[in-house]
């Protein structure tokens, strides 16, 4: 029989080893899964674990996928640490995309003379404003009416999605687009500057990395950051200290909404170049997994986004090359999350094999 014993002190060794064990478990379980689906497990696993990292182009694509995941997960980590359960990053992402896309559309149609570098700060501001405004609705309802932020933020995702559909089917539709529900292609001036010509990776990636470092400094090196993190695990201590829980709700939601919004703006002004009904690609939801896999730590979010992006890319490869269903990629992500949470138990607990003995009743 196996027993779990509480460790007197959390194991440092295990906190390093646990993600590696989780990865090993995921690879093993995935291998069995692919074998059961009649595919060569080594080949499919290499699509998930090797090919996304193989070559410069693959790496830049990986960075491109990481960018929105990092930005969304940073804000979510802050929210979750202060017990604000914002699961509507997808909606805030969409509103950021709409705001950033709307700005790009205006620049395009009004033929405003701008350089991409001048447009960059504008589109960041617009995206942040769009996402933050959407999250502000959640904050307002929670603060004023004590509405459950989980429900409100989730439902606002669908509102945002439908709003986007209305825009691209209606007022913002490209008049010369053969009636396709999409805006015109944005002018070149609105494109997020790229690192290298010919690669899709843009400077938004650098923005995300800088944001991660700033978030880390904010969370662990400033009084406000510490305050926000106390409200979650120890609300009585936060009350005792006099930290306002209302302001924590507002701050975390506005910050995370803003970051998700910037991610959305980068996506439409970067690789997409126009608004379509298909801007929503699940980044906001995947970012929840990223935030938790990264242990709600800003730098953890960067690492976790790399793993999850590789899984997304690997899933696409497996789908196009060996005809594996797209949902398998999701299953694979799920296995990773489950294994990681399971292995985290080992940080605070110890497995002990106990010999089964029959004892006489007293």
């Amino acid at each position, binding site marked *: 029989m196996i027993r779990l014993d509480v460790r*007197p002190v959390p194991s440092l060794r295990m906190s390093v080893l646990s993600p590696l064990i989780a990865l090993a478990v995921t690879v093993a379980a995935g291998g069995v899964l692919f074998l059961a689906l009649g595919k060569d497990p080594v080949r499919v696993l290499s699509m998930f674990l090797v090919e996304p990292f193989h070559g410069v182009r693959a790496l830049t694509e990986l960075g491109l996928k990481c960018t929105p995941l990092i930005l969304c997960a940073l804000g979510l980590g802050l929210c979750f640490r202060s017990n604000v359960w914002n699961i509507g990053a997808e909606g805030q992402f969409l509103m950021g995309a709409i705001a950033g896309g709307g700005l790009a559309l205006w620049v395009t149609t009004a033929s405003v003379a701008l350089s991409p570098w001048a447009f960059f700060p504008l589109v960041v501001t617009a995206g942040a404003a769009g996402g933050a405004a959407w999250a502000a609705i959640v904050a307002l309802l929670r603060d004023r009416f004590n509405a459950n932020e989980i429900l409100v933020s989730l439902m606002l995702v669908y509102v945002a999605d439908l709003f986007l559909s209305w825009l691209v089917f209606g007022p913002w539709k490209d008049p010369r687009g053969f009636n396709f529900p999409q805006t015109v292609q944005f002018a070149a001036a609105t494109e997020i500057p790229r690192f290298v010509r010919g690669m899709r990776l843009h400077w938004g990636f650098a923005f995300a990395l800088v944001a991660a470092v700033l978030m880390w400094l904010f969370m662990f090196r400033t009084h*406000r950051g*510490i305050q926000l993190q*106390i409200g979650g695990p120890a609300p*009585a201590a936060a009350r005792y200290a006099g930290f306002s829980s209302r302001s924590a709700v507002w701050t975390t939601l506005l910050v995370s909404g803003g970051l998700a919004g910037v991610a959305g703006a980068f996506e439409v002004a970067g690789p997409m170049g126009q608004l379509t009904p298909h801007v929503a690609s699940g980044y906001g939801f995947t970012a929840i997994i990223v935030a938790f896999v990264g242990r709600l730590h800003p730098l953890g979010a960067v690492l976790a986004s790399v793993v999850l992006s590789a899984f997304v890319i690997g899933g696409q490869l497996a789908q196009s090359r060996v005809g594996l269903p797209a949902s398998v990629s999701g299953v694979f992500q799920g296995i990773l999350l489950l294994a990681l949470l399971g292995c985290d138990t080992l940080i605070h607990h110890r497995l002990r094999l106990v010999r089964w003995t029959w004892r006489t009743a*007293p």
Partner: protein
Amino acid sequence: MTAPRLELRHVTKRYGDVVANDDVALAVAPGEIHAILGENGAGKSTLMKIVYGAVAPDAGELLWDGAPADIRSPHDARALGIAMVFQHFSLFDSLTVAENVWLGLSRTVSLREVVEGIRGKAAEYGLDLDPHRPVHVLSVGERQRVEIVRALLANPRLLILDEPTAVLTPQAADKLFETLRKLAATGCSILYISHKLHEIVALCHQCTVLRGGRVVASCDPARESTASLSRLMIGAEPPRLERRPASAGAIALSTRELTLESHDRFGVALEDVSLDVRAGEIVGIAGVSGNGQQELLAALSGEDPRADAGAIQLFGQPIGRVGAAARRKRGLHFVPEERLGRGAVPALSLANNMLLTRKEALRAFGWIDRAALRDQASGVLRRYWVKAAGPSAAARSLSGGNLQKYIVGRELDAVPKVLVVAQPTWGVDVGAASQIRAELVALRDAGCAVLVVSEELEELFALADRLHVIAKGRLSPSIPTAEATVEQIGEWMSGLWAGGPGQAAALAGGSP
């Protein structure tokens, strides 16, 4: 001669480099009340956890009724008839008293039977307890009653109590002693962990003294004095509290007919509470837990800013609706009753826990000067003799007494103008308790207004210049401590002062 109910031989337990128990031997006879005496960190709790199967010893053996027993889990211990009341309560806040008790019982018992069982045991042992109240509204003292009743329901053959009287009135403690004597007379053995010497002398048949994890003495407490026991425990005479009479100055903190409905229906509403605390004096508030202390403290600290603005005044300014941080800025500091989760955040380091109430290490834009913060925390650790791995140790890694020293130290170190303290020495050993008291008196002498809310009368008599009693949300008039007697304060605790809630009930024909 019958075999001892419980015997320990050569029990040793190490945590890393720390030896918590070193070759400990112990024997408890059936029906014996056996004291385990020792300072914080002497290894009492670890030893009891070993007996209870919560911790596995590295070496040694355990005999039950003379036969070797293999206790590998609390489940095994309960099967043998061992029950334990922990110092840290293991209750679920969101459940009621009865549901909490029910959780630990076998599935064949219905909730209704549990409710009846609780009522029965509570009546039998004179413990006032409503089985339907949710645990989160109970005070520490009331929670402890839940634990005691829960243990009694198992009809134990060995009951382990970890500092059970810490929050009881003298009358209630006497009642508990009666309970324990009754229980012992039925043949149940009792292991009584405490550092309250007079209790051990009054109650226990046998006493084992631990110091630094070793047994330093085994004696009959009836033949010892508190002084000799204390010498055995700390290896030296406890420092005496020296005090000069107070020279009270201007009113610093006051309440004027403070009336406040409780947050929840099981709480206690405050009614017409009027109170003055002057600079340079210590005012004590006595009372049985659950009579409005929590509500009064929350209203004074600013955690509950619902009072009428003018009902609470700090240096003549109305602060009833001012938040906790703003009150602290004006010089009002507060030490709460709950250490973990309120006075300190369990998962945060001691250094970061400074930031709950202290801002000296903050720079522009709230930037934390980490070196300054660590220095500040280290200073508190050093000055208040806190045993901790260092400023980066998590708050939850400290023992209860050490964390209390840290929190009290943190607030004293701020040199407040007004200090409100709840249970300043709860669970703290004799040496540290007298040190904390001496610091409080020193703070008073430096002109600070100090309000102590405590359920330990001994402490209030030692500390306070004037005493109030709180009962059913109402506050008695104050009486100079020099003129007060334990009997009178004990009566007041039942609301029996002129115009008090007990008096009104008596006049109305109800039972006092």
